[in-house]
C-alpha cells in the first residue's frame, strides 16, 4: 500500500490539493476565498490528468488534452 502510494505520489499530491481546495470552499465564508478554493480544486484535477501523461523516459508531449486550456473565464462573474 505504502509502496503504491509512493509510486503514485504525483496523484496523491493532486488529491491533497483537491482536499485543500474543498476545505476552502466549504469552510471559508469569504466569497473570494471560496473562489480561490474552487480554483485550487480545479487546478488539482488538471494536475491529476496531466500527471497521467508523464511517462518515464518520454520526451515528446503526448498526453491527453487537459481541460486546463480553458481560460479561467468561467468564474469571474461572481468575483465582482
Amino acid at each position, binding site marked *: 500500500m505504502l509502496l503504491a502510494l509512493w509510486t503514485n505520489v504525483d496523484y*496523491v499530491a493532486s*488529491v491533497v490539493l483537491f482536499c485543500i481546495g474543498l476545505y476552502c470552499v466549504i469552510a471559508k465564508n469569504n466569497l473570494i476565498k471560496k473562489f480561490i478554493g474552487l480554483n485550487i480544486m480545479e487546478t488539482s484535477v488538471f494536475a491529476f490528468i496531466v500527471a497521467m501523461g508523464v511517462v518515464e523516459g518520454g520526451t515528446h508531449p*503526448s498526453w491527453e488534452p487537459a481541460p486546463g*486550456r480553458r*481560460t479561467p473565464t468561467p468564474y469571474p462573474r461572481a468575483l465582482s
Partner: protein
Amino acid sequence: MKKALVIVLLIVAAVPLVAAVAGLPPHGSPSNPTYTHVSAYYLEHGAEEAGAENIVTDMILNYRGFDTNGEVTVIFTSLAAVFGVLLLTGAVARKPAAPEIPVSMVVRFIARLLAPFIAIFAVYVILNGHISPGGGFQGGTVLGALYITVSIVLGRDEARRLLPRGPKPWLQAAGPLTFVGVGLLGLVLTGYYLGFPTTPALAWLRTAMIVVIEIGIGVGGAAVLASVYETMEAD
C-alpha cells in the same frame, strides 16, 4: 464545531481518494493503459494522418476536435454569462467614469513600443501551433493581454478602437463559428463533421483547416478576454 465537522468530512473524502489513486496503475510506467490503449494509436499514426506535426494539436483539433469545439463554446458561454449578468444597465452606463489615474510617460512609451511586438508574437504563437507547442488558446490569451494592457495604459477609448463595435459580436463568436465552419467543410469533404481529408494529396488542405481553426480560436479567445475585461472594468 463547524471546523471539526469539515475536517471529518474532508478525511472521509480524502481517505478513499488516496486509496483510489494508490490503486491506479503505477505512475509513469510505459505499460499503463493510458499509453497502451488509445494514445498508442495517436503516437503511431498522428503525424501522418492528422495534419499537424504537433501531436497534441492533432489530438485537440482532429482526433478529439469535437471536445475542443465544446471547450470553445464553454468560453463563449462564460462570456455570455458575464454579459447577461453584469451587463450595464442604462443607469449605470450614464454614471460618470471614475477619474483616471494618470499613467507615467515612460509606461505609455514602452507600451506603445512593445504593442506591435506583442501582437506579432501572438500571431506567431497562433500560427505555429500545429508544429510546436502553442496554438489558438495561448496566442489568443496573449492578444487579449495586449488589449488589456492598452486599455489600462492608453485609456479605454484607445482600446475600443482595437475592437470596433460592428464586427465585435462576430469576433467574440469566432472560435465556435470557425470550428463549425471547418467542421462543416469536413462534412462536405469526408462525410463526417470535423472530418479531415486523409489522402496525402489533400494534406495541404488538412493543415490549412487546422490553421484556420487556430486563427479562429485565437481571435475569438482574444475578443472574449477583451470584452470580459471591458465589462468588468466598467462594473
